[in-house]
């Protein structure tokens, strides 16, 4: 059945609005489609997973007696014989930020019902995401070739490898799934499934451009997590 928006007096703002929203019937989150609210709550739980990983990383790093490997040197790339610190990581960061930018524009184009532009921007986002994963695979194989293992590495504290593979591996998995969803969404948009409100493959709900924003939330979250990984793991 189609969703019928509730009507009534305009909801109040500020703290008063907060109290009335939370104490209201049926739905606490006004003006938010439930799919988007559920995505936010999923992302909240995901935040806790990544927070646990980063806090454990902090704990093992503080408690390690061996010196922690210097990420600036470990992740350096040599260009013309000259080592440039963190070069690949910097490029990966810019690629992920750019993909977040194209995603934001895709959401905007979606709400403007610009089918073609939305699809192109989604494909562009997916390509940037895929190149990010590709660079991560390159980085992993480089480190593995240099002898980094979850139980040891040539430069110092053994916990370095375990933290690195766990945190970047989990993040890379998130990016990979995001790319998959972006491609599926681009196909849906391109064939007009959202314009015609066709139901999805696994759901009876009608397609709407709101789902592009919901996917966008997931994608921006992946970028958000990278901001923290970049700061705490690579720069700290």
């Amino acid at each position, binding site marked *: 059945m189609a969703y019928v*928006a*509730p*009507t*009534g*007096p*305009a*909801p109040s*703002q500020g*703290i008063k*609005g*907060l109290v009335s*929203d*939370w104490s209201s019937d049926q739905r606490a*989150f*006004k*003006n*938010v489609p439930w799919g988007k*609210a559920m995505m*936010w*709550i999923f992302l*909240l739980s995901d*935040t*806790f997973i990544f*927070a646990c990983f980063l*806090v*454990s990383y*902090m*704990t093992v*790093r*503080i*408690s*390690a*007696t061996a010196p922690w490997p210097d990420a600036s040197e470990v992740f350096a790339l040599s260009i013309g014989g000259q080592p440039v*610190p*963190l070069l690949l990581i*910097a490029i990966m*960061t*810019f690629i992920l*930020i*750019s993909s*977040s*930018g194209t*995603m*934001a*524009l895709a*959401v*905007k184009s979606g*709400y403007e019902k610009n089918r073609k532009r939305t699809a192109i921007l989604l494909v562009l986002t997916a390509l940037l995401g895929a190149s990010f994963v590709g660079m991560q695979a390159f980085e992993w194989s480089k480190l593995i070739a240099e002898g980094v293992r979850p139980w040891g590495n040539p430069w110092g504290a053994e916990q370095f490898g375990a933290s690195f593979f766990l945190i970047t591996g989990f993040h890379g998995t998130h990016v990979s799934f995001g790319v998959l969803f972006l491609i599926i969404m681009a196909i849906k948009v391109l064939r007009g499934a959202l314009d015609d409100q066709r139901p999805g493959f696994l759901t009876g709900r009608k397609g709407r*451009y*709101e789902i592009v*924003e919901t996917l*966008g939330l997931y994608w*921006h*979250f992946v*970028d*958000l997590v990278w*901001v*923290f990984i970049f*700061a705490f793991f690579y*720069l700290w």
Partner: protein
Amino acid sequence: MAHSVVAHQQQAQHHAIGIYLWVWGLLFVLSVCSYMVDYLGFESYMKWGLITLFMLLKAGLIVAVFMHMAWERLAIMCAILIPPALVVFLMGLMAVEGNYTFLARLGP
């Protein structure tokens, strides 16, 4: 009727393209800044402070503008943003725990 009846259905997030491009640009600048912290070889509290500052600014911009949190109602802002902030407490506890383990490993 006393107050005007307004259909408060889901408002689509419509924002000018300029704000997205601005935030995109700012994220680039902030990333360059945090990269420069490493490149210029700042040390200790200066380094950690700058890294954290740029990190929080980037995170704030992404959540507020790209994820449209700035235009949501206070109810969902609080529901989503307050719980992760409490992780700072866990971080403090585990830092104490980590220091204890470190001292224990050093031996008597």
